[in-house]
């Protein structure tokens, strides 16, 4: 399969810069550890916020870290779309008889994010061990769906950013709100923020779908019928559709420069 070849190529290319990749992997993990430490400090001082204690939040943190790292690793081409336009690689992709979205996935794989993804999973596991959850099949299913749909939502955000950059060329900083901002927001249960922030990140950019909503189901918290919480990740998957359409629309309007 073509994608396997892309993975093979990126692996070979990455292996040329082994020490650099290790350095980047390590430093990315260090940032995460710093963030987790901050969360720990906050809970150490304030004990809890609403229902949520340290381990619940750590589980959320683990999910977010894993989800973001995986998406940044495999959908890097969308994340760095402006540079794809600037250095002319997009033109190159366009003269090939393969679907553009497929090719953009293949254009960049950032292996240095994988270690951080592992770290996220480890944090998830540690949190789960400390939480005394009574696991059922649906709970496991919801957890898996949460991770998958989380990746889709973040890919969707990247697609919107990439789509906008077709017209602006330059990456605009405020897109950062929806990528990194959404990430930091989602380290904590979104319902602790004020109304407009939690609405923004529930209904417009459905970060809540892989944050406190499915966890409310797993933990047994919350006042809504549990089926709402259980199905919330799927709402995130729906978010991807308009994002993908927007991106494809923008891509159609892409015009190479004249030189």
């Amino acid at each position, binding site marked *: 399969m073509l994608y396997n070849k892309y993975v*093979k190529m990126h692996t070979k290319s990455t292996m040329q810069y082994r020490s650099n990749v290790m350095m980047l992997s390590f430093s990315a993990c260090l940032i995460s550890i710093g963030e987790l430490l901050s969360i720990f400090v906050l809970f150490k001082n304030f004990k809890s916020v609403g229902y949520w204690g340290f381990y619940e939040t750590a589980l959320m943190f683990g999910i977010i870290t894993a989800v973001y790292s995986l998406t940044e690793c495999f959908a890097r081409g969308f994340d760095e779309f402006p540079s794809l336009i600037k250095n002319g690689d997009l033109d190159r992709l366009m003269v090939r*008889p393969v*679907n553009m979205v497929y090719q953009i996935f293949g254009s960049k794989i950032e292996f240095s994010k994988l270690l951080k993804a592992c770290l996220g999973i480890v944090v998830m596991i540690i949190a789960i061990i400390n939480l005394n959850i009574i696991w059922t099949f649906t709970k496991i299913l919801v957890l898996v769906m949460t991770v998958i749909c989380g990746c889709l939502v973040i890919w969707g955000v990247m697609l919107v950013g990439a789509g906008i950059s077709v017209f602006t060329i330059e990456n605009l900083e405020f897109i950062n709100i929806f990528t990194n901002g959404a990430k930091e927001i989602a380290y904590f249960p979104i319902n602790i923020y004020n109304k407009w922030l939690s609405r923004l990140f529930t209904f417009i950019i459905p970060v809540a779908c892989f944050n406190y909503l499915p966890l409310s189901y797993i933990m047994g918290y919350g006042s809504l019928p549990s089926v709402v919480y259980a199905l919330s990740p799927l709402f995130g998957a729906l978010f991807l559709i308009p994002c993908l359409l927007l991106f494809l629309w923008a891509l159609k309007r892409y015009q190479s420069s004249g030189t």
Partner: protein
Amino acid sequence: MSKIIQFNKICKDFKVSLKKSGKNKFLNLFKREHKTISALKDVSFEVEEGDIVGYIGPNGAGKSTTIKIMSGILNPTSGECSIMGYTPWKDRKQYVKNIGVVFGQRSQLWWDVPIIDSFELLKDIYKIPTDEYNETLNELIETLNLKELLNRPLRQLSLGQKMKCELAGSLLHRPKILFLDEPTIGLDAVTKLSVREFVKTINKKWNTTIILTTHDMSDIDALTNKIILIGRGQILYKGSFSAIKEKYDHIKQIEVEFAKPYDKIELEGYEVLSHNHNFATLKNKEEINFHTKDFFNAISKKYDVVDFSVESISVDEILAKLYTELKL
């Protein structure tokens, strides 16, 4: 012979945003003025299957824009274009299977992975059957002498070696048309020759139609007689290159050796291009026709001539003349 490329009144306008240097910089963030630049104006031409066509013109004339329209990356503002029955920017995925593109200094190969791996990836991208791939690859290795290069990454190759690999990479799927954007730029003389030789071979062997843009007129001289000359977005000339050459054929450049050094050389009807001790280079003025005998009689009357040689002016000079004549 069938017409493989048909360009019919293609126009392309670019919108360029103007940056005002006025006081109201802050307002400019929200309001921008646009200016339309037309890069191509009613460009029409046809190319026959199996031809090599030189697409020439000064910088900014619209060469790259044309190539990009032909390869489906840009869509024109108006006009029609049919290549092998496809409209490039509409039937992109189907169409690009049939073309190969070498963009000047941009590579399609991977920087730090052995060349052969990049080729294997291209095999999958173009879905080339293994037998066909092996056969084509062997042919390319042989004609381009690539064997030694294949296991090295692109970053270790010289400019000439890179270009050879680029060419091979864009031919693996045996395209019917090959677009070459400045294929010999920056290459040394020997590599230039071998690249040209290769282009010719491919053209003959596979009947590949080749469109190339270049600044180097010796490329055109060596490869083709069919040129399209473009300037300021308009086609200025299409047809045979020799016809242009003939037009200027009566202008000669003469190198003269004198028996002794002269302070000043002057000859009616001739221009002195350079003069150094007992050597001088002269050129006849355009309004007179050059005759060897007349020239010899005239010059030996005034000076003591030991030897002289006559040369036609170079193609580059012809082009420079054309550009000035057309005020490009």
